[in-house]
């Protein structure tokens, strides 16, 4: 599939991997630029990981520090697990972008700067006294000053566009430069532009011209002595696509609906970074998906509960603050034992916090955030592509066990992307669902002896008329019941029902050393960083293993035993130690936390350092 281009170059260096970051003003189109580069590299066959980092929800004034938007992509010839700790090449569209991002550029790293945006007032907006282009502060880098704006305008002068429209294309000039630098084909982006600007071919043309001009600029000028080649990665065979976590989550639920024969219902209320799941699903009406944008999160989850009661595969998606609002109703789903999947796309907190930044500090809320004893299964996705599988698994567990299930992902997974091997339909297990229809001996709270699930008896079924609700129910009959012994049995049964799910969870098998000095235990989006750190540590001869939990409640049965195979257990988390606490309580191991709460993922070296420190 991947096409290559024969480009003349001065020197062509082959690299294992590279990290580029596009940075500019929110209005500069950096997210699109980054996505295009990513997509092209994916099609070329690189493995990759991305990290889009955009400003908080409000648009800051152009050119200012809070308005800086960045997109980082790490692409390589072998497994890539993180977007990269440091940046090999930085494209900075204005002084603010330069200032905010320079710290992450490697010494001697490639630095492309749009010099047209370094006027007096641009510097002022970025709170810079004088131009870094002139004060030798960039001497440590390979600086390439480019008049991006002027050159773009020059390239487009014949199209008859106004200045504003021309300037909007300058990100494609930068993209063209990067395509030259990394020997990439422009074809996929041509296709994308044609599709995107179907109605306005002049804009497709303009962007293509700008891109070609950027490409040609590198080829023509003597500025660039070297270009780079990153060969395709040796991924396991199959069909691949580049996928973000939110997309994977959305189609995971559609897949589960299709494989269970249920209709999918989503009750949701917009909130960053979860809204895209609603946007995605609302576009898939051909799959019979009902999306309900409710008046708030409470209505969203309650409508989902209603839909579950009426026999649909019901989900609700949100982020931290919205999750808090849903908790009372989730307790109702626990009590009424209805299948429901609740997705919390975590973001920085507490309260409104850092809405566009990532964090994994809602584990406590997921496990414990309801009144009284209301246990439920909690799953977490590890990578963008894993969101698909976690969605599928959550849906399967919910309908099989008649239980609400919480899925945790986070802003980093939601917006990040990776090449994802597309499963065939047959690889997706069928999900057995049978609604109760037989009125003989029907009792709404009679249980399956193995799973303890109660029957799913949906309104409209003759002869099964019954009442459910949030008051404690009598065993078997489901009638309202206040007896002490019945209550205790029901509390324990609900807990046992969830605990038994452990029977279906595969044993954990540590990556790396099966026993040794340090076991890294992670969950969620830290997967990539830990995996990369593990490889580096083992390459240095450290005896380290890694367990990454996808099921956080119940925990895999052999986890305690695995923990004890290592001298020390280290738990890296983007919170103050939440899984850590659960593991310490459950297994009484003196596990140590590695905690980072900065609204951004771990760097690989932070994990390495911690392990080295523990190894002392």
């Amino acid at each position, binding site marked *: *599939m*991947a096409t290559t281009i024969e480009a003349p170059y001065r020197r062509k260096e082959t690299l294992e991997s590279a990290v580029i970051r596009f940075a500019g003003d929110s209005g500069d189109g950096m997210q699109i630029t980054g996505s295009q580069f990513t*997509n092209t590299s*994916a*099609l070329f*066959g690189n493995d990759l990981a991305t990290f889009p980092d955009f400003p908080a929800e409000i648009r800051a004034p152009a050119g200012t520090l809070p308005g800086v938007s960045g997109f980082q992509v790490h692409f390589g010839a072998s497994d890539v697990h993180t977007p990269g700790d440091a940046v090999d090449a930085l494209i900075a569209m204005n002084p603010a972008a330069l200032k905010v991002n320079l710290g992450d550029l490697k010494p001697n790293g490639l630095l492309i700067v749009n010099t047209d945006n370094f006027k007096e007032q641009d510097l002022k907006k970025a709170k810079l006294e004088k131009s870094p282009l002139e004060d030798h502060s960039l001497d440590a880098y390979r600086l390439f000053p480019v008049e991006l704006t002027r050159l773009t305008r020059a390239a487009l002068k014949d199209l008859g566009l106004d200045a504003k429209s021309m300037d909007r294309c300058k990100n494609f000039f930068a993209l063209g430069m990067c395509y030259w630098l990394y020997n990439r084909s422009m074809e*996929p982006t041509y296709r994308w532009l044609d599709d995107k600007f179907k109605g306005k071919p002049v804009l497709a043309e303009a962007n293509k011209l700008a891109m070609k001009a950027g490409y040609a600029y590198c080829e023509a000028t003597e500025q660039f002595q070297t270009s780079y080649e990153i060969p395709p990665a040796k*991924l396991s*065979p199959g*069909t*691949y*696509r580049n996928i973000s976590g939110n997309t994977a989550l959305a189609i995971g639920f*559609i*897949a589960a609906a*299709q*494989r269970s024969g249920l*209709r999918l*219902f989503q*009750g949701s209320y917009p909130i960053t970074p979860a809204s895209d799941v609603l946007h995605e699903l609302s576009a898939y*009406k*051909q*799959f019979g*998906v*009902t999306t*309900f944008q*409710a*008046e708030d999160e*409470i*209505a*969203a989850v*309650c*409508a989902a*509960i*209603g*839909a*579950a*009661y*009426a*026999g*649909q595969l*019901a989900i609700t998606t949100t982020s931290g603050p919205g999750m808090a609002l849903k908790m*009372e*109703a989730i*307790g*109702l789903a626990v009590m009424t034992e209805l299948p429901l999947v609740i997705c919390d796309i975590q973001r920085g907190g507490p309260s409104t916090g850092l809405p566009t930044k990532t964090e994994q500090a809602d584990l406590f809320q997921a496990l414990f955030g309801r009144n009284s004893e209301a246990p439920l299964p909690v799953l977490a996705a590890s990578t963008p592509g894993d969101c698909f599988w976690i969605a599928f698994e959550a849906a399967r567990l919910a309908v099989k066990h008649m239980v609400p299930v919480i899925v945790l992902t986070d802003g980093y997974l939601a917006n990040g992307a990776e090449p994802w*091997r*597309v499963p065939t*339909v047959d690889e*997706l297990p069928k999900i057995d669902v049978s609604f109760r229809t037989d009125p003989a001996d029907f009792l709404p709270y009679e249980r399956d002896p193995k799973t303890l699930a109660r029957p799913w008896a949906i*309104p*409209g079924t*003759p*002869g099964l*008329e019954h*009442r*459910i*609700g*949030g*008051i404690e129910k009598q065993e078997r009959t489901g*009638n309202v019941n206040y007896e002490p012994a019945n209550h205790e049995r029901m509390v324990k049964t609900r807990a046992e029902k969830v605990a038994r799910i452990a029977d279906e969870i595969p044993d954990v098998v540590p990556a790396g050393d099966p026993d040794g000095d340090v076991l890294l235990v992670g969950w969620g989006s830290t997967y990539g960083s830990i995996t990369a750190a593990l490889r580096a540590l083992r390459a240095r001869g450290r005896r380290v293993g890694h367990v990454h939990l996808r099921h956080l409640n119940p925990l895999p049965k052999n986890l305690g035993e695995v923990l004890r195979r290592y001298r020390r257990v280290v738990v890296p988390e983007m919170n103050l130690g939440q899984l850590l606490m659960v593991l310490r309580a459950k297994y009484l191991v003196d596990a140590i936390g590695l905690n980072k709460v900065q609204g951004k993922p771990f760097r690989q070296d932070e994990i390495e350092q911690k392990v080295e420190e523990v190894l002392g």
Partner: protein
Amino acid sequence: MNATVYTRKDFQTDQEVRWCPGCGDYAILAAVQSVFPELGIPKEKFVVVSGIGCSSRFPYYMNTYGFHSIHGRAPAVATGIKLANPELEVWVATGDGDGLSIGGNHTIHMLRRNVGLKVLLFNNRIYGLTKGQYSPTSEVGKKAKSTPYGSVDRPFHPLSVALGAEAGFVARGVDVMQPHLKGVLRRAAAHRGSAFLEILQNCNIFNDGAWEAIVEKEVRDDRLIALEHGQPLVFGKNRDKGIRLNGLALEVVSLGNGVTEADLLVHDEKNPNPAYAFLLSRMETEPGFPTPIGVLRAVDDAPRYEDLVANQIAQVQAKKGAGDLAGLLHEGDVWEVK
């Protein structure tokens, strides 16, 4: 199944009815249980959804599908049910606290969307279940558990709230007026869009005589006015009083002395402008005016939310064909690794 003939008994459950003896809720239950069999709808198609409150125990006593949810959320749960299966007949039983205090927002959004639900709002102007705090419909100065010196909040007028939220069907019944109540229940049942029915209900324990001043047998004829579509607004024990329009205002007039029924306002429940029903809904706030009961507004031309949602899906499916899972999985740019 359409021909099933039910009796009231078919809608009764084996659960002990746990309201205080003398509670107005019994009468409402009786009325609903006697109207449901008339509707010719298979029993299993009914779902009664409620929140929390004395009134919200209602589903337990109806031998249909029932969902006693959480405080204030019945309209949201019911909306989900209706979206999942528009064929179901979904009734919501709620109270003045459940439906207008904690659940006020869901109530108005459900009405705005025109979800095809029938809402029975049991208005006893008190929180019964939690033993007697004032509610958003309690009159100013109410001495209740949490207001020993009298409440100072101005009350809602439920029908005005509903009309402000775009309601197409707005009506009022009274617990102790069974035949009339059954009549409005039938009308609510017949309405396809959202039907909002306030039922004046006595709580003989915590707010005895909640509506005494207007519904007591002796005063009823003078204090209530039963609306009938196409009929002039006449009331009074001797049907000797009426409501006349004076500019934009209503006025109470005595019939006779040259004033005849022809001078009176003729009730038009189909008036497309809700301002008319809104005007009626304000009568209760003005001294000397009777409180309207019956159907204030019944305009059913707006499509139901659940139908619109279902149609949109059907249209997309008709255009794009039923979704293809393999296609979905492979959407966008894909590539092969050998």
